[in-house]
């Protein structure tokens, strides 16, 4: 299958789980902003959880489909539709030649998602990743956001993809968080660079996401957090995903997918993975609050995400292996055969 981009949308780029392993060369990780959504969307289609997808921001692209395949929109509801008919998020759809994918616009419940295809977006990886890092023009399609006329190849889908039509993710596996819950910061790092009063303000005040926020960082405005006499600058060290960095101006910046590998501002802690998931869906102008968390809470969230991915995988298998009562029982499903001591895994598909 191929995709022909007829309208690019606001910011559509190829992303996977990120370019890990090259930070010591100064190369930012990049990758999908909503990571749990990408992982779950991929396994719903039988892809590896890190397959590349198109990250869609707020106003989605218009895409013509060449060939056949299957897709799911994993993330906030941005009005994902096929031939004008609403499909929505977390529901797989089988695509046929000539179908047109459009997005009707955000529904007020978030601003981005991953358009995943069975077989994944097929692009030669750069430094082991397909993720686009626009600032240094690395990865994806020529290191840039998609534009009109781009032709995107889709890889070979996993067997039984034709049976994916209508497969929906149960609501309890949707990684989206309560949008009003305070964001959890695992405190530490240079926490002692801030005054007690400053820390108190951070956890008691409301902050507004500013319009300068992008894939690199989410800038906040609100009560100014004072540093101690040691100041806001440190000798540069690593910036993990979700680091809450507070420069001399006292306003927090939360470091996102396209963050630099290293930086010289004090960090009060790091957001938990599900708080990150909630944050990246917030529009500029949204209000956020913070609360303290510890490492064990972050680990528990990673476990929950992993479990949701595992269950989504299982549900897909049982969906594509189900039988129709009205039709004669066709031969399909998963078999394990042992012939002369050799184990074979076989997937059958009705044609």
């Amino acid at each position: 299958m191929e995709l022909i981009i007829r309208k690019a949308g606001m910011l559509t780029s190829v992303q996977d789980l990120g370019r890990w392993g090259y930070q010591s060369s100064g190369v930012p990780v990049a990758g999908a902003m909503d990571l749990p959504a990408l992982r779950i969307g991929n396994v719903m289609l039988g892809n590896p959880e890190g397959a590349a997808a198109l990250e869609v921001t707020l106003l989605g692209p218009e895409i013509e489909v060449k060939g056949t395949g299957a897709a799911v929109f994993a993330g906030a509801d941005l009005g994902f539709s096929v031939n004008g008919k609403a499909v929505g998020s977390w529901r797989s759809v089988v695509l046929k030649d000539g179908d047109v994918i459009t997005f009707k616009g955000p529904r007020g419940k978030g601003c981005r998602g991953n358009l995943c295809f069975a077989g994944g977006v097929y692009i030669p990886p750069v430094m082991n990743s397909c993720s686009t890092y626009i600032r240094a023009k690395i990865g994806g399609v020529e290191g840039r956001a998609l534009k009109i006329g781009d032709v995107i190849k889709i890889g070979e889908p996993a067997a039984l993809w034709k049976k994916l039509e209508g497969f929906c993710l149960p609501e309890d596996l949707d990684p989206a968080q309560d949008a009003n819950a305070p964001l959890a910061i695992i405190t530490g790092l240079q926490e002692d660079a801030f005054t007690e009063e400053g820390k108190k303000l951070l956890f008691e005040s409301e902050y507004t996401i500013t319009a300068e926020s992008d894939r690199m960082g989410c800038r906040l405005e609100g009560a100014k957090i004072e540093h101690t006499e040691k100041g806001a600058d440190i000798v540069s060290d690593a910036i993990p995903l979700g680091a809450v960095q507070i420069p001399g101006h006292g306003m927090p910046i939360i470091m996102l997918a396209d963050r630099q590998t290293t930086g010289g501002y004090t960090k009060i802690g790091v957001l938990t993975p599900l708080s990150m998931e909630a944050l990246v869906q917030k529009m500029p102008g949204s209000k956020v609050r913070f609360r303290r968390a510890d490492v064990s809470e972050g680990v528990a969230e990673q476990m929950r995400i992993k479990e949701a991915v595992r269950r989504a995988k299982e549900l897909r298998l049982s969906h594509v292996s189900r039988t129709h009562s009205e039709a004669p029982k066709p031969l399909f499903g998963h078999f394990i055969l042992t012939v002369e001591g050799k184990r074979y895994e076989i997937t059958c598909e009705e044609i």
Partner: protein
Amino acid sequence: MSLYIKYPKYLTAGESCVVVEFADEIDRGANDAVMNLKKYLLTQKDISIVECLPTYRSLAVYFDPTVVSADEVINAAKSAPELDGEECASSFTEISIPVCYGGEYGPDIANVAEHAGISEEDVIKRHSSKSCHCYMIGFMPGFAYLGGMDESIATPRLTNPRTVINGGSVGIAGKQTGIYPIDSPGGWQLIGRTPLRLFTPEASRPTLIEAGYEVRFVPVAEEEYKKIEAEVAAGTYKPLITEAK
């Protein structure tokens, strides 16, 4: 040695990263300890690590917390053998970076000469006379933070930064010297340019200089610069890297 009494510090940075700090300032001993720990952790096959990121004074260790715990990573780091100071001082990797100084390659060399009160020839001599240590790579892909430049040629940044600087440009900013790996804006005083490619995304090792290397600038004439440039373009140039023990 008072510096090391409260170090190393083992900090958790969220649930998926541990930072081992060896100092809170730029310190060669701390940086050597960072490189030593990185080398050690990469040999520990029973601890599953996603990536190690060395900086001036700390090592960030990224891992999957559903596979290995922060405590296990910290314990592995604590089991690293201590750095033998002598061994470290006597083993190093040095890379030679050919630079064509002055002229269109280094339009700000006169600023540096004037600021130091010396001739342009002396700027070149002082810049290339002693090797610099690469403490870390960061800021942008392939950008090496170098320390140890002759401080007599330290010069403040340009007051009016350039919007485009060619990749390969060698500059001075305060006491630092560095090489722009890719075309980018910036305010460093440009004194020369290297024909080498510092960052090659499609290569198996994308950066020419790695953290921990000694970097020696070697002055070359324009003719030699052009010859090397052609060899780099043809993929036949082999950078001069020497390992001493």
